[in-house]
């Protein structure tokens, strides 16, 4: 009999999040971010948290909301443009920032979830990123040792999810969500559509429910677009 992960809503989902914790948040830019949980974190007013997220949202949306409330002590990200308040807090020293290559960030989350404490990658060799890290040559090429990342809570956003916590993401909204789901001690999934067990094809699931501790039907997803680029009707592709 499958293990139910359903909680009543975002309040129950986010219970237990405390000041000073390390949180992972899925998404790339504003695409595939856990909007409901971010709202709740703002409401809860948790402080001094470390956020692991590829980006930091934009001013006034996504993680930008936590930033403007000075709730974040440290960000671990790969790209933090598009956010003036972020830049201000970083340059003034209010916010600690650890910038790491995007591929290393993804792989470090996966490693954290997969019980691999460390691995070697060529990314960042010879740059600031390599400072203080072990360098070793493999096949005549220098690599640096990167360590696993885990989090007290991981917040992910999926398209469909079932009661057992199995998740399917849509298009490029998948991005960091599957790895962060693996790496959270407690992983919370908010989904656009929550379905009974048996409705998802077991062959089509992206994140197995074993990685998810709590799941709920998200509400009023805004799904904001950062760069709306279009071509006119009847234009050649």
């Amino acid at each position: 009999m499958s293990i139910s992960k359903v909680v009543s809503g975002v309040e129950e989902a986010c219970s237990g999040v405390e000041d000073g914790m390390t949180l992972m948040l899925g998404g790339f830019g504003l695409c595939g971010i856990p909007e409901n949980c971010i709202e709740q974190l703002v409401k809860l007013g948790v402080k001094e948290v470390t956020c692991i997220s590829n980006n930091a949202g934009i001013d006034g949306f996504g993680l930008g909301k936590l930033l403007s409330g000075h709730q974040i002590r440290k960000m671990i990200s790969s790209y933090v443009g598009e956010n003036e308040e972020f830049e201000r807090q970083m340059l003034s020293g209010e916010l600690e920032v650890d910038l790491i290559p995007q591929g290393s960030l993804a792989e470090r989350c996966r490693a954290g979830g997969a019980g691999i404490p460390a691995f070697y990658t060529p990314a960042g060799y010879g740059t600031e990123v390599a400072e203080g890290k072990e360098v070793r040559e493999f096949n005549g090429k220098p690599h640096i040792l990167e360590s696993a990342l885990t989090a007290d809570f991981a917040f992910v956003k999926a398209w469909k999810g079932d009661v057992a916590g199995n998740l399917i993401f849509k298009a490029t909204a998948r991005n960091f969500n599957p790895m962060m789901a693996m790496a959270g001690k407690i992983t919370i999934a908010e989904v656009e559509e929550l379905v009974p067990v048996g409705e998802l094809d077991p062959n089509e699931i992206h994140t197995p429910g074993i990685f998810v501790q709590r799941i709920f039907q998200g509400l009023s997803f805004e799904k904001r677009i950062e760069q709306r680029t279009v071509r006119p009707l009847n234009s050649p592709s």
Partner: protein
Amino acid sequence: MLDKNGIATRIAQEVRDGWYVNLGIGIPTLVANHIQKGMEVEFQSENGILGMGPFPIEGSEDADLINAGKQTITAMPGAVYFDSATSFAMIRGRHVQLTVLGAMEVSSNGDIANWKIPGKMVKGMGGAMDLVASADNIVVAMMHTNRAGESKLLPTCSLPLTGVGCVKRVVTNLAVLDIKDGAFHLIERAPGVSVQEIIDATAGELIVPSDVPEMTL
């Protein structure tokens, strides 16, 4: 002298049939518009799509379908979506044949800087460090000089590096240059640009052969 689309057109000539190509933000993105018709090429965007198509028809844009520049896009027939770990497995594992990206500085030993100006601008490296550390073919697309008129092709980079000894070719508004043996090698001139103009705009060591053909675009 080339404009941005001119640079993109010239870089499109670097693309070979059957290649998977990653295009960075800015000028590199334009390369997709200039690929020779009928060529089998697929564009990878490191946020999680292979087989990226053009921008969507107005009204059909989807917040869940974007490229690494956060622009709304479409998917071509045969496209596939994947997570970020798989995306960088493709990149780190050298399954992507060509990476085109912009730069603030390139040095004559192939170093590249494009992610940080200390004390001023820190947007982050995004996927650039993974891309330059692993790609077999890295082409930099950029203006030859910065807004202050200073050369961006230097003996050594002054800004924090993105990668070391990785850039093989640079295409600017003035020229195509290869990097080998610690020097820039002038390969082609942009239409109407003299060799002397290129020499003047290049701060790093520049090897100029006796004959420098003009680009054919």
